[in-house]
Structure formats: C-alpha cells, structure tokens
C-alpha cells in the first residue's frame, strides 16, 4: 500500500468504525471497488486494520475517560468486596459479562474468520445482513414503543445501561461476537442487541462504545505484535491510526447526540444499499 491508500483507509475506518455500518467491511470492499492492487490476504493487512482500531479505541478512552475511571475503580471495589452495590460497579460487571463472549469466539474462530477477510464479496453479503439486523431490531423496537408519543418520551420509557440484567448483557455480548465477520458492524450488532434488551437508543450506543474498547484492545494485543516483525511502513501506519482516532472521536460525539432521538433506520438502508451495489460491481 502507498501512503495515500494507507491514509485513505485510516480515515475510512475512523469514520465508519462507530457508525453501525461495519468499518471492516468497508476496508475490504472499498479497495476492491477502486481496483487497488494490494494483497488483502497478506498477513500484515489484518494487523494494519487492528492498529487503526487501536486508534479508535484510544479515541473512545479519551471520550469516556471519566466513565472508565469510575468503571475501573468500581470493578476493583466490587471484586475485593465480593458484592456489587453501586451503579458504576454494576456497569463494570456488565461490561465484563458482555466482553467475554466476543473474546472467546474471537480466540476460537480467529483462523477461519481471517480467511473471510480476503473476500470482498463475502464482506458485501454480510453488509447486506448487517442492514437486515439493524432494520429488524428497529422494527421489533417500534412494536414495544408508545404510539403517538414524542420521540424523547418514547425513549424515556426504556432502560439505562446500569439497569440492564446480566443475561441481557450476555445477549448483547453475543451480538457483538457477530462483528468478527467482516461486513457485520460491531456497534450495529451491539446496539441491536441493546435495543432488544430494552435499552434506550442513546444508552445502547453508549454501551456499544464502552464494550468496543476492551475487545478492540484485546484484538490489538493479539495482532499488533506481528506488525513489528514484518517490513511495513510503521510510521505511516501510526499516522493512519492517529487519523482514524480523530475521525472516530468526532463520529462518536455526533452519534451520542444523534441517538438521543435518532434511529438505526438510515444506517440499515445504507448498509443494504452498499451491500447490493458492491455485490453487483464485484462480480
């Protein structure tokens, strides 16, 4: 990859990572559509994407720095005491319970899933599935909303993250595990799971962003070491990670405001449209 391609992919990843449209799917499909000739099956490609994800994780850590300080303190307090008492302690435990399923699936299915990364058509098909997941979650949500109420009143009838049950957190974590498939959005799948568990849109986005940080960190731990063992332009990769982080920060700030009353519908339509167009063009 040349410098322009690296920086383009970094910006693309940063913008699409937190929007529920699958950054990984875009990172596989867009270069194929542009006929960029580099080997996506190269062992350094996935670690490059993971480095971009680490930029995103850093942005989320900065954005939620106060939450994370409370969560870490809450986890240690509850672990030592052996009892969960406060809201931040419960949130810490919910994050642990929600993170383990995706981490376990990632470790077990790492190899077969990596081979899928090399196929833009597969990613396009999964992007179509992503659209269906988002739309399905919204349709189910609408059935349990109060009719003829304002959007803010409708949202207030649902839960905050701290009120989520542990089995529901496992469900959301399992939904996050779907995002190991390129084309399925991590934030989208997690948000869809959160909506099914009765969270408000904004709270399901918050939970998705908090859940993303440890799983991305774990993925980074698994892959980034390979970057240093190969002949890769590490300086350009790190610049790309910084660009991805900055773009993710702006995206997250926008989405948190958007989901105060906004829905997943536009992202479902976008995912489905891009999936169909990519399938047609990538014959």
């Amino acid at each position, binding site marked *: 990859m040349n410098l322009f391609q690296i920086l383009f992919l970094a910006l693309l990843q940063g913008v699409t990572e937190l929007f529920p449209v699958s950054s990984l799917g875009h990172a596989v499909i867009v270069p194929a559509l542009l006929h960029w000739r580099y080997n996506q099956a190269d062992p350094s490609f996935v670690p490059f994407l993971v480095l971009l994800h680490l930029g995103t994780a850093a942005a989320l850590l900065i954005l939620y720095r106060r939450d994370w300080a409370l969560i870490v303190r809450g986890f240690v307090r509850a672990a030592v005491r052996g009892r969960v008492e406060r809201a931040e302690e419960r949130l810490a435990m919910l994050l642990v319970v929600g993170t383990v399923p995706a981490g376990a699936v990632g470790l077990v299915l790492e190899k077969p899933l990596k081979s899928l990364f090399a196929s833009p058509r597969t990613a396009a098909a999964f992007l179509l599935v992503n659209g269906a997941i988002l739309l399905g979650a919204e349709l189910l949500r609408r059935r349990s909303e109060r009719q003829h109420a304002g959007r803010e009143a409708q949202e207030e009838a649902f839960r905050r993250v701290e009120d989520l049950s542990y089995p529901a957190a496992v469900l959301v974590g399992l939904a996050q595990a779907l995002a190991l498939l390129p084309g399925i959005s991590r934030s989208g799948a997690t948000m869809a799971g959160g909506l099914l568990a009765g969270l408000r849109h904004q709270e399901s986005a918050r939970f998705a962003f908090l859940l993303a940080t440890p799983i991305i960190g774990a993925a980074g*731990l*698994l892959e980034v070491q390979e970057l240093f063992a190969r002949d890769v332009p590490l300086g350009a990769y790190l610049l790309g990670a910084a660009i991805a982080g900055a773009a993710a920060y702006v995206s997250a700030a926008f989405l948190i405001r958007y989901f105060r009353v906004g829905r997943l519908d536009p992202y479902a339509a976008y995912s489905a449209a891009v999936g169909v167009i990519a399938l047609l063009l990538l014959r």
Partner: protein
Amino acid sequence: MTGWPAAGLLVVLAIVFAILAALYAAGSIQFLTTSGAAHAHHYTHAIACAVLAVLSLVAANIARPKAA
C-alpha cells in the same frame, strides 16, 4: 447463580484457566491457536486464559454467601 456450590465451581474454573495459561505460556499446548506451530509460545492465549482465571475468581468471590 450464588451460594457455595457456585463459588466452588468458579474456583475450579479459575484453576483450570490458570493451568491452561501456564501451558500456553510454556508452549506445551497449541489448542485453538492460529499458527499451531509446535512448541510455539502463545502468549496472547496465555494472557486471555490468565484474565479468565482472574475473572472466575472475582465471580467466585461475588457468588459466595456473605454474612448479613
């Protein structure tokens, strides 16, 4: 899931994860690793198993009955 049986089960789970972590770190097992290279040290899997061992202990501490 609370009480002494649950706490005991979680402690056993923690011990199993700790043993797996040691075996991965030593390169004695390659189960579910990407490379599967003989005698490779799979530190990432070792770290994951160690984290799961700690989390199992935390869960055991939370699950055990508390004095009122």
